[in-house]
């Protein structure tokens, strides 16, 4: 199958005083459409940095990034903004909802950013998809951590992106809620046809993923395709 996103020989260095820290070292990854891929590794392995580069939030020191059929490595900020607006979405560990907007408005906000029509049905469908149809007009501080994360997921899918990057989305949640979130991602992949790329420490989550890349010290040390066993 075609890779919707691909990273070739990606290197990333960060300056630290007079030295440079090599966070990623010739990483090669590709992600197929409509799959759930997990990037796993301990803290400091470079998985978040890799995700940021693939998600256009950062640029590699060297190497190339291909997304949606084009080389996006050297695109301008404006073009990268467009990609993030239309094709890519994020779910963060810290949730990061807009505190002065209700659940509905947070999801609607994404449509505004993407300059898409304010489709009320679509918004309510997304909220229903994540199981929050009875909490539509609640403010973020009126929701639990898990509920807030679900709103974030609804926000991430409302504008029909092609790829969702989820950086440790269940890190602050209990195991039951984490399972719910993971199943939600599967449902979204099936119903919305998105590709989900996720980082996590959670071993249980990895069993549910289609593919798992393991990073250590900025390198891919293993790759497992769980679909072969199913």
């Amino acid at each position, binding site marked *: 199958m075609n890779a919707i996103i691909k990273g070739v020989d990606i290197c990333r260095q960060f300056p630290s005083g007079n030295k440079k820290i090599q966070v990623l070292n010739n990483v090669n990854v590709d992600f197929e459409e409509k799959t759930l891929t997990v990037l796993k590794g301990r803290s400091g392995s470079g998985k978040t940095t890799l995700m940021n580069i693939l998600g256009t*939030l950062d640029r590699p020191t060297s190497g190339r990034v291909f997304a949606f059929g084009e080389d996006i490595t050297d695109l301008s*900020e404006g073009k990268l*903004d467009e990609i993030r607006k239309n094709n890519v979405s*994020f779910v963060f560990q*810290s949730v990061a909802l807009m505190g002065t907007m209700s659940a509905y408005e947070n999801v609607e906000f994404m449509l505004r950013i993407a300059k898409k029509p*304010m489709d009320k049905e679509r918004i309510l469908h997304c909220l229903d998809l994540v199981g929050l149809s009875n909490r539509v007009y609640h403010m973020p501080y009126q929701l639990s951590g898990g509920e807030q994360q679900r709103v974030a997921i609804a926000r991430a899918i409302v504008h029909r992106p092609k790829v969702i990057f989820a950086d440790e989305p269940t890190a602050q949640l209990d195991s039951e809620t984490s399972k719910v979130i993971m199943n939600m991602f599967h449902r979204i992949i099936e119903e919305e046809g998105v590709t989900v790329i996720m980082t996590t420490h959670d071993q249980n989550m990895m069993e549910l993923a289609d593919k798992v890349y393991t990073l250590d010290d900025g390198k891919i040390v293993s790759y497992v395709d769980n679909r072969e066993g199913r």
Partner: protein
Amino acid sequence: MLRFAIKKIFNNKALMLSLFAGILVAILISCTIPVYSAGISHRMLVTQLENYQNENKVSPGAVIISCSLAAFKQETGEGGVVDKFDSSANILNFNYCTDYLNASLFPELYMPEIVKSTSLSTTTMFAGDKRDTNKSNLNEVVLCSNDKLTEGIEIIDGRLPSGTLNDKGFVEVIISKATQSNTKFSVGNVLEVGMLKEDILEEYTDTDLSFEIVGIFDYVSSAVNPIITNDSGNEIYVDYGLFFNELFVKKNLASKATWYFAGDYTKYNLDKIKNTINALDNLNNNLVVWGIAESAATVTPPIDQYQSYFDNVRAINVLLALFYTPILILVVFFIFMLSKFVVENDKNEIAMLNSRGAARKQIVLLYLLQGGLAVVAGILISPLLSLILCRFLGASSGFLEFAQRAPMKIVLSSSAYLFCFFAGVLTILTMLLPVYNAAKIEIVQHKRNRVKSSVLGTVLLGVLTFVCAGVSAYSYYVLVMQQGGLFTAGGSIQPLAYVFLISFFAFVALFFVLLYPLFLKLILLITKKKLSASIYSAFSRISRMEIREKFIAIFLTLTVAIGVFSSISARTLNGNIQSSIRYQYPCDIITDVKYYAPVGSQNQVLRPYLFEDVEGVESTKVTLGNEPSVNTRFGKRLNYNLTFMGITPDEFSSIVEWDDTILPQPLSYYLDLIKNQPEGCIISENTAKVLGNVEVGDTVLIRPDAALRGMSVINSPVLAIVEAWPTYYADVEAVSGENESNFLVVVNNSAIEKISDNLPHQVWMNTDKSIAELKRLTIERGAQNGTSARLENVINGKREVYLGEINPVRQAVNGSLSLGFIAVMLICAIGFIIYWMISIKSRTLQIGTMRALGMSFKNIFSMIMCEECLLCVSSIVLGVGAGILSGVLFAPLLQSAFTQMGQMPPYRIMFQFTDLIKLAIIIIVLLAVSVVAASIMLKRIKAASAIKLGEE
């Protein structure tokens, strides 16, 4: 704990620096009040005393007591009852008095001594040259001495006298030029001096001393001269020591003593004013006890000036307190707001500390250390800074206007340190209040409280707004309707004035934060489908104002409102004072010219106009008439309390300085009416009423000269009816003390001159010549024109205008309002900038998320700018409106500060557009700085790092 506190300060540099600035401003303003008030009071006292000196020609720091030694009662003297006729009594009285003055009076004046002297003199005696065989050539002389003789004179011939008898056994003496001219004595003359003429004629002298003239002197020209005497041309001066020993002690010839003290009143110690008044009262009492109260000639510092000083100080203090109260409240609010920002920033940390077992007082102590360092530094620095600030304010010549002036005497008093201390305590308590509240919240409760607080907060806000509205409306009603103004009968400010100001500003600010979000929500509801992400986000955020936004909105509204209020109050005070001075003194000089017929002449007194074509003098004649009257053909005759003015319109126009906003039309309009219709007249409203409701176009009969009968009237059409005219007051205070109406008629001189050109007149002029020069000119020109003329009742308008400008009360108001305005703008700038920095910094995660979601830098920048407009710009606009409204409501109450008879021109609220421009410039600069700062901060936010920071 201290190290932790210092570390927190450095971690939060911008916020702590702003907090420190706020604390410093609060303490500095508090400290400045007593220092500035004392400095202005001192300047006011010096000005009053200088005026006293100019008018009375005597130094206000002088004490002169001159009396006959024989007039003392018997009780005087340390030795108890003394026989009045005992020769030792005079010496005892003199010594006793000298000791008393030196020990008890002069030190209690608390003025640095410039000169102190004692004079002794004899009664009138007779002197003749020993060699003059014609004993009828005797002169009346007085033998004098002064212990500071050499400081008051300069020898022009000969030398100073010796302190002992010379080789020939003579007493050496000197005489003044006037005495030399009067007596024809000269250097080298040896005089016999006796009590009676016969003593010398009979060759018997009461003294066995001869006096040799060794020098001629003239007086030193100085405002302070120890030789206090009106030179009668008969004084003969002996060395003081010699006089005392030989003439006073041995021969008891001294009959009069004069004690003179001159102090530098410009360096008077204000703190000792009560001591001085007591000392002067004691002196007066002692003079009575000694029996010389009626016979002694005394000059003492003007006690009434010092006593009125206290009233003036009180007036200044209450005005300063009134104008500073809103500013101090604002500064305290500023400190509270910044402290709240700090606590908001640290709330998680505080809640965590609490959850980990930290006691409440430990947390409070931590913040006490942080803020306490700032307060201590503020208390140490502020007194010195206030000295500099007060010197700067002392140069204020108007609101936000400064001129080169002589420096004000500024002293740090104990009050200044006390004010510093109390301001420091207040700022500490204000700063710790939010900390104390936050310190009791645990981390779980902290998150739960957010739900409750929003509902409770809105209800509380509504109640507060309602209460403030009610209080301000009620207090204003009572001030205006029932109490009739700002001041109590005792001269202090009505407490309700403070209540009104504070509650009004609070109401405006609270009303804004209560209703404005609802207004924005309404707009959002109507327009949300069309709004872009940036604008929508901005509206959403501001329409759901959180605590921080509410604080900054209240703060900006209050700051700007108080700034505008200060400017309106200052302009209204200054403008009305300036207007009323100019109304009363519209040109440099206004003077009557009195004419007298030459001595022995039976002719009519001639009154030619003497100031035609005088170089350096621009003048005009204002004819006063001779018992003028005005009436209608069938109506009442008006010939009492009539201000009659015959003017030459063109000249009048060029001489007079007039505020064209007083009358409905510019002055030139009315002058043109009279110029174009020379027979016409302008009358006052009360004149029109008394004459039977005369209207414009009606004809009145004007008789400028009651002495002329027959056709000596002007049939004058009324060209205009006015309520004001240069120097005209519709109400005057009669002898009875009651107000009486004063009527006005203005006509063209050309119409008067057809009837008579020899009527009494005034001269109004603009000139740089002195009054003495003008008086001389009048006499000369009068003589040239065959008449005798003198200037009388000369009004020096230029001087009055100058005195009005340097009036210390006015300076105090201008200085304090200028300081208030500057302080307000300073903390507004600090608060504004710091709010935006905190706002952006605290939303780093949110902004990073927005970037991650696809919002461009431009979108986010637009969002921030939109928030700034919705929150800050609207707060500022409301503040301007509230400031103008408060000024319009409050400024009329200041009218009670005016005590002039029938305030003219009518009291008006004044506002200078330039003040609004200054304010606009400050705001534009602030906005520009915030735009640049926001841009820089936003550019530095990288989405990836921002999100990572948020997760941490």
